[in-house]
């Protein structure tokens, strides 16, 4: 974010100005050596600016997170440092995996530029993560963050949106602290800005009021979060910039990666040098016929497996009882893949493929280890459970690993209504 008058944002620009002042102040006495020295000073200062810029950019890029994989959601994000006369730093996005398969989305913007802003952004990013992982509501996260900015750190104001996307319920709940609203793309509709309640940025007032809004996101809809580098620029007021963005977004693809690409392309066409830009697009995936997961053989991955499979089964119209029973069966198959991962290759992933043909669900779990001896009570009970809960269990043991396929026919909504 660049809200300050030129020159105050960075210490590194000072030597350049000093150098040129000295040169003009030298008057008639300008000799070859002095000019040479001044040129060297300018070159050195320019190099320092370049070093700081490079440092800030490296810091910034490394602080931005890798996007997680969440069943039912598709993401893309971009970060682009500002043009030559502006500097890098202070814009960030984050995507945080919450409980029950939900996702927290953060987009924020720190006043200031350069290494300082990038470092400050890192503090703020961690703080939001901590509050988000406490499962706090968006408005509460913003209140806590306001306190954090006021009490815990020095520096100017910060704008921030925190949103929680629930791919099972198709909803997005969000609150904003002075940050422009996300642009929502729905299939066969023109893009519109999400309705949010205006509220002050973080670090401005001691008792801010943050209101939450909840919106439905239909399958295949995409929400685009961005920083003001995208809608504000020299000679472009925020209001016009927002209109510009919306107009330029009409007819854009909904797929996040293609959308980010198209948006940045249209920004380039509209204006030249700008503040830095961060954007993050998240799309609710349409319910697919198949589900393919690659999982690490760690107990943690069983939790994400359960969310993914439950989400997929619900989309395949399974009842809650059916979802639960198939999850248990599936969990037994995966628990064995995790339990007997070979110590030497313990990071070798295992795979889960689920498909639906008419009313029949088939789930295959394959790993590179051997099924544990059935004499062990745990796996004996697990196997028995799988056989009871599914119509068919097939275990294929080969030299390269074990493949467990479990099948079950869904009763379907009609059959469910008949039987109470």
């Amino acid at each position: 974010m660049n809200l300050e008058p030129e020159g105050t944002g960075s210490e590194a620009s000072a030597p350049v100005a000093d150098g040129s002042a000295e040169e003009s102040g030298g008057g008639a006495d300008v000799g070859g050596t002095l000019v040479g020295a001044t040129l060297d000073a300018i070159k050195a200062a320019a190099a320092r600016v370049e070093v700081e810029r490079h440092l800030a950019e490296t810091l910034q890029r490394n602080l931005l997170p890798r996007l997680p994989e969440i069943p039912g959601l598709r993401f893309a994000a971009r970060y682009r440092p500002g043009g030559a006369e502006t500097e890098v730093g202070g814009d960030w996005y984050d995507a945080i995996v919450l409980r029950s398969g939900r996702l927290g989305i953060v987009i924020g913007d720190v006043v200031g530029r350069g290494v300082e802003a990038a470092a400050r952004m890192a503090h703020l990013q961690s703080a939001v993560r901590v509050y988000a992982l406490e499962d706090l509501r968006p408005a509460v996260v913003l209140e806590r963050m306001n306190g954090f900015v006021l009490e815990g750190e020095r520096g100017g104001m910060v704008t921030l949106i925190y949103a929680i996307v629930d791919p099972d319920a198709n909803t997005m709940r969000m609150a904003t602290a002075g940050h422009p609203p996300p642009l929502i793309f729905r299939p066969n509709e023109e893009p519109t800005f999400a309705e949010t309640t205006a509220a002050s940025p973080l670090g401005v007032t001691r008792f801010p009021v943050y209101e939450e809004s909840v919106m439905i996101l239909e399958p295949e809809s995409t929400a685009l979060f961005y920083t003001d580098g995208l809608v504000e620029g020299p000679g472009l007021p925020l209001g016009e910039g927002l209109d510009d963005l919306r107009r330029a977004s009409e007819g854009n693809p909904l797929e996040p990666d293609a959308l980010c690409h198209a948006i940045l392309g249209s920004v380039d066409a509209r204006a030249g040098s700008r503040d830095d830009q961060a954007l993050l697009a998240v799309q609710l995936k349409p319910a697919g016929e198949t589900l393919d997961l690659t999982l690490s053989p760690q107990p943690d991955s069983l939790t994400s497996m359960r969310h993914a499979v439950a989400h997929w089964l619900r989309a395949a119209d399974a009842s809650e009882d059916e979802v639960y029973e198939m999850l248990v069966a599936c969990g037994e198959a995966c628990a064995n893949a995790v339990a007997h991962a070979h110590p030497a290759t313990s990071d070798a992933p295992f795979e889960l493929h689920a498909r639906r043909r008419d009313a029949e669900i088939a789930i295959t779990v394959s790993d590179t280890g051997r099924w544990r001896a059935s004499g062990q009570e745990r796996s004996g009970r697990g196997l028995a459970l799988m056989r009871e809960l599914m119509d068919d269990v097939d275990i294929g043991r080969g030299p390269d690993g074990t493949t467990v396929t479990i099948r079950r026919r869904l009763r379907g909504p009609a059959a469910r209504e008949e039987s109470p």
Partner: protein
Amino acid sequence: MTALELRDGLSRRLTNVGPGLILDLSEATYLDSAGIEFLFDLARRLRTSGQRLCLVVPARAPMRRVLDLCDIDEIASMDVTVDAAVEGLHEHAP
């Protein structure tokens, strides 16, 4: 909370005083064979001090069928509410 965490938490609190232990599973979202193994183990330990294990499982919880399939009734009683479980424990108390 996982079965492992529950086991660690419980082992420090279990005493041999009282008619038994009531485990409320109403809020539990998932129970697999590891969890069931834990319940069997817990019931065995309680039995050595003459205590009983009561599980609280709501009537319509999907978990009920899984518990039934594992013959949980051999080692524990199942009630729909905590109140019913408390009553049950006291009725059977020696």
